[in-house]
Structures are given as structure tokens and as C-alpha cells.
């Protein structure tokens, strides 16, 4: 094989903490050849981003690296910052995770592209603008010339990431470093960006260093993979080999925790994730799931024709010129012990549905009944009772806990507020709740910052359970967690469902997680439920085109199943309508037992 483009050997990077230096990555070795894609995969804190930043020498003055980073025969660690500047953005391009913040909000897109061309390729402004237009076309941005004069705010997340890619590729680099470039994007947009990177790589023949936490993405895109764990590369090899025969226990644990779309075919109940012993790599057998759905009793939650719209106002008189139809005529039921998942992409109205059910957002019309109590017309006292029956768990465990409140007090607060516990027994109940979610009662005295993300989400679950609810609305509750933690929290949710007969409304964008946890699934698009039915039916026999599109976009963590995909470059649309818009009447067609798909009357007529 030819000489590698990039050859990292013995790279150790240390950060200065207080007075001492602490190593964050140790003795990293990695080669990347021309035209090759190497994925670096690991969970948060594994050092994968630090590795990339060390190569780019972007870590700042409180970090130092030792070892060798040979790029095109030059040791990057030996270069001055000035010399490094001619490498960055020129010979090595880089893309970051957050397309929303990678671009300067007050500079026009055109200027942000041309500045690279003028810096490295010495073009004058006019030539640079023409080149910038060509680059935007290359990353498939329509009407490129006009868009050069726009600011980032008029670009969607996916479009911004395209601009960022255009900038990174502006000087035809030999190596592209992509640091979680699709993590913040919706699945269909993620699929578009991955396809784009692959296509551009073939056109340019460059090498790609792809950093991600998502095994599905790894399987989709990479030729070789390096697995990082707490600052060490624990395993490197061909991607197929790593997926087929993982050598290191950590790799095995990671792979076991990855939900794989389609892995549940033929299975009708939810399924726990296998837990792997990190030391031995031994996989514990999965406990079989008990059927918890109580079909005999009345449903815990009943939603009928729920509509939530947000008015858009303009002009001096604040006239309502239109509405965002966030939730439009949505109906479903959740039974005791049942998990219904609301799945869809950002802006589809799934979170607003969850919030409207608990009246955190006031619905425009419709009926919501929780335990036979009407939510929409409830007064303050009734609402308090209802909110005891139905609790909510949010996405970000870092923001949903008050940093100045001990977790014990945070869990006790709802019980005291609702008069369910007195000063004498509240401590004991908090202890029991902590045990129930797999923490120890002695942790009650700690503050949220002393916990990891997964532990905090457990605390949030304990807090939600404090009032003995019958129903939990979980809004993207596992999305912010690392895969192995995610698997544990989902197992916990399934355990609690078995013990307490909880009904879950599980709101998520992650199809693979949804497949694992739900009994029934509702797919939302532009404020409507386009398909609803038993999980097995919806996943094995998707009927609505949007459901199919969503499923096709999910990366599959199996390199042998790499697909050639037809990806459209559509944007996700917003459900904005002019004032006075009357939604067409909708009709659900029955596909199978309890399985319905949205059809329009006029569509059938036409």
C-alpha cells in the first residue's frame, strides 16, 4: 500500500488542570490513506474530538501534544502556528458538529466562503465569489448565486452544514476531518449529508477522518474504524471485521447497546438491551419482556382531535396573518402498561403534542382525557390532580434539574407540594425512589453536577415517579445520552413499566430506539399523524410514503447491509398556513389490525 496521507503515531495530548498536566488521549496510532474513510468512534469523553483537534493544533494554550502527526510527510506538531495556518482549511478541511453555530451569524455566506479562497488560494474578490458559487452548487445548494448574499439565519441546519462542507472543501484538501457532522441533524437530512460526503470524496479522491458516536453512521460510511475508550484507541481494523468480530470487550458492549433498525422483526413486544460486562466482554442474556398492556381497562390517556396552533402576527395592529399548525387533528390512546411512541423529525409537532396533553402549552381545540379527567377544561385544582397522574421527563437532564438543589430535595419537592409526604417520611420515600431507578439512597445529599448525564436522567425519572403517576410523557428523554447509557435507561423504563404498569408516551426522533421500546407507534409529519399502529406492523409493513422515507434514512449498524440509497434533497417543511386556512378533512385507511394510515378524501377521489 502507498504511503498514508496522515500518520498519527504515539499521540498523547494533555490538558492543564490547575497546576498539573492531565492526559486526555494516550498513545494514539492511526493511519489514513488517500481516498479512504476512517471512522473514530466512541462515547462522550473518549477523546475522539481531542484527537481531531490535536491534528489541527486547535486546542489552545492550556493543552500540549507529543508524538508524531505526519501529514504529507511533514510533522504537524513541529510546525509554527503560522505554518499551521497554511495547512488548516487548505490541505486539511474540517467540519464541526453544530451547523447552527459554525457559521458567523453576522457575515454573509458569500464572505465566509471567499475569505478561505482569498487566504489560501490568493484569489481576488470577484474570482473568489465566482468560485464560491461553484462550490455551493457542488454541495447541491439550489440558486447558489442569490444565496451567497444571504446570512446564515436564512439557511436550515442541513443547508448550513452544506455550506460548512463547501468551505471545508474550498481548497481541495487532501484530508477532511468531520467531527460529528450529522449528529445535530434529522435522520433524513443526516442521510443527505452522508451521501454528499461520500459523493464528494469520490469526486475529489480525498481521505476522510470521520468522528462519530453513532455505530450506524460508522457502518454506513467508513472503510476502517478505530474505537476509542477513555482516551485510548482500544481497537482498530476494517469496519466489517470490527462489526463481525469485535475483539475488545468495550467494542462488544458498544455494539450490543446499539439499537438496530429491523433487528426486532418477528418480535411483537418491546425488548431490553443486552448488557455487556465491560471487563470480560460477557453478554448477559436479555430478560424476556412481560406483556404489560392492559387491554381490559379504560385507557390512561385519550386524545381526541387535538389541535394546537401558534398564531403568527405581523404589522402595527398585530394582526394574525397565519398559523403554525403544530398539531393538527391528532387522536390516539395509551393504555395502562403500554408504550405509544410519537416519532418524527424536528418541527413535526411531536413535542407540542406532549406539551399540549399536560397543558404546558394550551391546545386550540380537541379533547384530552387522563384517567377519565378532562384536561382541556380542568381548573387549577383539577390540573394539579391530573399532573399527579401524568408526569413528564425532558430531553436534557442537565437543564431540567435545578443546579442549586440537592437531588433528594428535587425528588421530594413534588411529594411535598402535593401533600403526599410529610417531613418525617419524605426522606425514606426519596431513598426508595432512588433505589428504584438504580441509584443509592445515600446519593440524595448530592448536587446535580456530581452526577453523570445518565445518572441525572435517572434522578429525573425518580422525580417523575415520586407522585405514583399512571402515565409518563417522555420527551426525547434518552436522545442526549451515550449509547451504553441510553440502553441502560431504556432497560430501566421497561423494568418500571413491568413493576408499576406505567403507560408511556415516548416522544423520539430515533427510529431504532422507538422500535425497541414501543408497543404501538404513531408517525408524525407536519403536525399530523400519518400512520399509527402496532409497532411490528408499522415497522415491518410501513404504508405511508413518509414512514418509508424515515425508515430508509436511518443508518444501519451493519456494514454488510450498506445500501445504495435514493436520497431526495428535500428540506423539512414547516406547517405554516395563511389565516383562514381550513385543513382538508382527513380519513384514516385501515391497513390491518389496529393499523391506520392517513389518506385524504380528495386524493382518493382524484
Amino acid at each position, binding site marked *: 500500500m502507498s504511503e498514508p496521507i496522515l500518520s498519527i503515531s504515539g499521540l498523547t495530548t494533555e490538558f492543564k488542570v490547575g497546576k498539573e498536566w492531565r492526559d486526555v488521549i494516550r498513545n494514539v496510532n492511526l493511519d489514513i490513506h488517500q481516498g479512504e474513510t476512517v471512522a473514530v468512534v466512541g462515547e462522550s469523553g473518549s477523546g475522539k474530538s481531542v484527537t481531531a483537534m490535536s491534528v*489541527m493544533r*486547535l486546542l489552545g494554550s492550556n493543552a500540549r501534544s507529543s508524538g508524531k502527526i505526519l501529514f504529507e510527510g511533514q510533522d504537524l506538531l513541529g510546525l509554527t502556528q503560522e505554518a499551521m*495556518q*497554511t*495547512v*488548516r*482549511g*487548505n490541505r486539511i*478541511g*474540517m467540519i*464541526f458538529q*453544530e451547523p447552527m*453555530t*459554525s*457559521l*458567523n*451569524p*453576522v*457575515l454573509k455566506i458569500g464572505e465566509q466562503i471567499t*475569505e*478561505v479562497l482569498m*487566504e*489560501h488560494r490568493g484569489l481576488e474578490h470577484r474570482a473568489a465569489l465566482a468560485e464560491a458559487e461553484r462550490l455551493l452548487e457542488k454541495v447541491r445548494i439550489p440558486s447558489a448565486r442569490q444565496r451567497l448574499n444571504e*446570512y446564515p*439565519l436564512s439557511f436550515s441546519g442541513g443547508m448550513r452544514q452544506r455550506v*460548512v462542507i463547501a*468551505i*471545508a472543501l474550498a481548497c481541495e484538501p487532501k484530508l477532511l476531518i468531520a467531527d460529528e457532522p450529522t449528529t445535530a441533524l434529522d435522520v433524513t437530512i443526516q442521510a443527505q449529508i452522508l451521501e454528499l460526503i461520500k459523493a464528494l470524496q469520490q469526486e475529489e479522491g480525498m481521505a476522510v477522518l470521520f468522528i462519530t458516536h453513532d455505530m450506524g453512521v460508522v457502518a454506513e460510511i467508513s472503510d476502517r474504524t478505530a474505537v476509542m475508550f477513555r482516551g485510548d484507541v482500544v481497537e482498530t481494523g476494517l469496519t466489517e471485521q470490527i462489526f463481525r468480530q469485535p475483539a475488545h470487550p468495550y467494542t462488544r458492549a458498544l455494539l450490543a447497546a446499539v439499537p438496530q433498525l429491523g433487528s426486532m422483526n418477528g418480535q411483537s413486544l418491546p425488548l431490553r438491551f443486552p448488557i455487556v460486562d465491560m471487563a470480560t466482554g460477557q453478554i448477559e442474556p436479555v430478560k424476556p419482556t412481560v406483556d404489560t398492556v392492559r387491554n381490559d381497562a379504560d385507557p390512561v390517556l385519550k386524545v381526541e382531535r387535538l389541535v394546537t396552533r401558534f398564531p403568527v*402576527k*405581523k*404589522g*402595527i*395592529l*398585530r394582526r394574525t396573518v397565519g398559523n403554525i399548525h403544530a398539531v393538527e387533528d391528532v387522536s390516539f390512546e395509551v393504555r395502562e402498561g403500554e408504550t405509544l411512541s410519537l416519532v418524527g423529525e424536528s418541527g413535526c409537532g411531536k413535542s407540542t403534542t406532549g406539551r399540549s396533553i399536560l397543558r404546558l402549552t394550551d391546545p386550540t381545540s380537541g379533547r384530552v382525557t387522563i384517567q377519565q379527567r378532562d384536561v382541556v377544561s380542568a381548573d387549577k385544582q383539577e390540573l394539579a390532580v391530573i399532573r399527579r397522574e401524568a408526569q413528564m421527563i425532558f430531553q436534557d437532564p442537565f437543564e431540567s434539574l435545578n443546579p442549586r438543589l440537592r437531588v433528594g430535595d428535587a425528588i421530594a419537592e413534588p411529594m411535598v407540594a402535593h401533600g403526599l409526604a410529610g417531613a418525617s417520611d419524605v426522606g425514606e420515600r426519596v431513598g426508595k425512589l432512588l433505589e428504584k431507578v438504580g441509584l443509592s439512597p445515600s446519593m440524595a445529599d448530592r448536587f446535580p453536577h456530581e452526577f453523570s448525564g445518565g445518572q441525572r436522567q435517572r434522578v429525573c425519572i425518580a422525580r417523575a415517579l415520586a407522585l405514583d403517576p399512571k402515565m409518563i410523557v417522555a420527551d426525547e428523554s434518552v436522545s442526549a445520552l451515550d449509547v451504553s447509557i441510553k440502553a441502560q435507561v431504556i432497560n430501566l423504563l421497561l423494568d418500571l413499566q413491568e413493576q408499576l404498569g406505567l403507560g408511556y408516551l415516548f416522544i423520539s426522533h430515533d427510529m431504532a430506539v422507538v422500535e425497541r421500546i414501543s408497543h404501538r407507534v404513531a408517525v408524525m409529519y407536519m403536525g399530523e399523524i400519518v400512520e399509527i399502529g402496532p409497532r411490528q406492523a408499522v415497522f415491518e409493513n410501513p404504508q405511508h410514503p413518509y414512514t418509508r422515507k424515515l425508515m430508509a434514512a436511518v443508518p444501519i449498524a451493519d456494514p454488510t447491509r450498506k445500501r445504495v440509497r435514493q436520497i431526495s434533497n428535500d428540506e423539512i417543511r414547516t406547517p405554516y398556513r395563511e389565516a383562514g386556512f381550513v385543513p382538508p378533512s382527513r380519513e384514516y385507511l385501515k391497513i390491518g389490525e389496529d393499523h391506520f394510515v392517513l389518506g385524504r378524501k380528495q386524493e382518493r377521489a382524484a
Partner: protein
Amino acid sequence: MSSYLFSRLAQTIVTLFVMSVLVFVGLYMVGNPVDVLLSSSATPQERMEVIRAFGLDRPVWEQYFTFLTKALQGDLGNSFIFNQPALDLIFQRMPATLELAFVALVMALIIGIPLGVRAGLKPKSRISRLIMTFSILGFSLPTFWIGLIMIMIFSVFLGWLPASGRGDTVNLLGVPVSFLTLDGLSHLLLPAFNLALFKISLVIRLTRAGVMEVMQLDYVRFARAKGINEKRILRVHVLKNTLIPLITVIGLELGSLIAFAVVTETIFAWPGMGKLIIDAIGVLDRPVILAYLLITVVMFSVINLVVDILYSIVDPRVRLEGGSR
């Protein structure tokens, strides 16, 4: 945009009206200007004449109504003391104050921003700490005291700069200004710096905080990854984003510079409106006080409008729209 301007204009008119009522009633309640104007030896008959001449014998709402009808015709009344239109009096003095305030503002910016950037880029260096110490002093030492000390050092001991007055002026577009003559400039330097001192400290702190924040942001990191040189990163990516919050504060501060010029004008005997208003308050010269306050309202409104427009130019995320904001 035009609907935005229109709604802002309407807001300003409402503010002016409310302000005039408040001030009118407020002034009506404190003291009687006749007591101040007339000597104690005046006969009751003379007293009555003066009261009638000023229209002070009528009920307050009627006085206010007379004032309002005249005001709508552009007449804010004559000064009780000088028997000249109050507006004329103020407009005569206004250029001096505005010049002082603007020069102070420019000083605050050209001194404050570079120092703030320096302190923000290397917050731990010795120079940066020195700058921050200076800004604390600027905040905490009283203006009048520093003014006196400056007069002592630069005028009395060193004899470099004059201590009072405006110096030679030339007419610029019909308005007398000092900063275009050497003598005028030398007169301007001390009072303007004195007035600017507090604002310099403020600008330093704001700029420093802004730079430190922006330097951490993703797009600066991305600009580095693009291989853009540090000078351009600072000038284009960091500074422009730092200036955005600065513009709002500076706009409001310009208003307070004009208002607080009173102290500095008094110390340096600067012939501006600050001196005029202090005297007017002393003798309860109602029309002058009222006119001054109304002009201040208009000035603040205009400054705020300019700030908002500037803001929307600098920050594309802000779009001006009519109605409540």
C-alpha cells in the same frame, strides 16, 4: 421598515405627552416661582400682577391646556427670568453640550475598545490586569473629584491646558464648534476626558466580556479551522459580534452623557445646557425646565431609534417590525 418608523414615532409622541403632564403637575406642586422671582419688598398688588401675567392664577388643568395648545404650535413659553423663548435659550446652549458629549463618546470608544479587546484576548496578562484596575478606578472615583485633580495637574502645575471656557469657535453649518480650532480643542480636551472616563471604563468592561465570550464560540473555532489569519479573525469575526451589544449600551450612554454633562460643565465652566438647567431649577423657571425635559425625551427617542436601526444593520438576525417589540 416604514411601519416600524411610524409606530416608533407614535410611541415617542405618547411618551412626550405623558412626560409633559407629569412634569407640569410635578412642577406645579413644588414651590411658587413668584416667591423666587420677586423681592420680599414687593407689594401684594405687584405680586398679583406678576401672577396674572404668568397665568398662574388659573387652575392647573387650564394652565396645562394653554401650554399644550401653544406647544403644538411650537411655542414652549418664555423664560420667566430672561423673557426669551425657552426653546431659543436651550438651542443656544445645546451645541456646546452636544459637542462635549460626542467628543467624550468618541474618546470612550477609541480608548475603550482597543483596551477592552486587549484585556479580552489575554485576560491573564499583566497589561490586561492593569487595564482592568484602571477601569475599576474609572468606575469608582467621583467625576467631580477627578475633574478638580485634572485641573490642578494639567492647568495649575503643568500649565498645559486651559481650565475653563470653550475657547475659539468656528461655525460649522451655522453651529459654533470648538473642535476645529487648536485653542478650542485644547479647551475641550480636559472636560471631554473627564466626562468620558466613566464611559471608557464601561466600554472596556463590555468589550472585554464580549471578546472573551465570542472567542469561545464555534464560529471562531471554525474560522481557525479554515486557516484564517488571527488578524482577520479578530477584526471580522470577533469584533463585529462584540460590537452588537455595545451599540445598545452606547446609545443609552450617549443620552446619559448629555444629561450628566451637568457636573463636568459646572467644574470646567463649560457654557452648555447643563449650566442653564441648574440655574433654571434654582429659580423655578418652569418653561425652561419643561422645555429642557421635553427636548431630552425627544433626544433619547431619536438616539434609541438610531440605535435600533444601527443594530438591524449590524445584526442580520434583527428585523425591524412595527408594533410592540
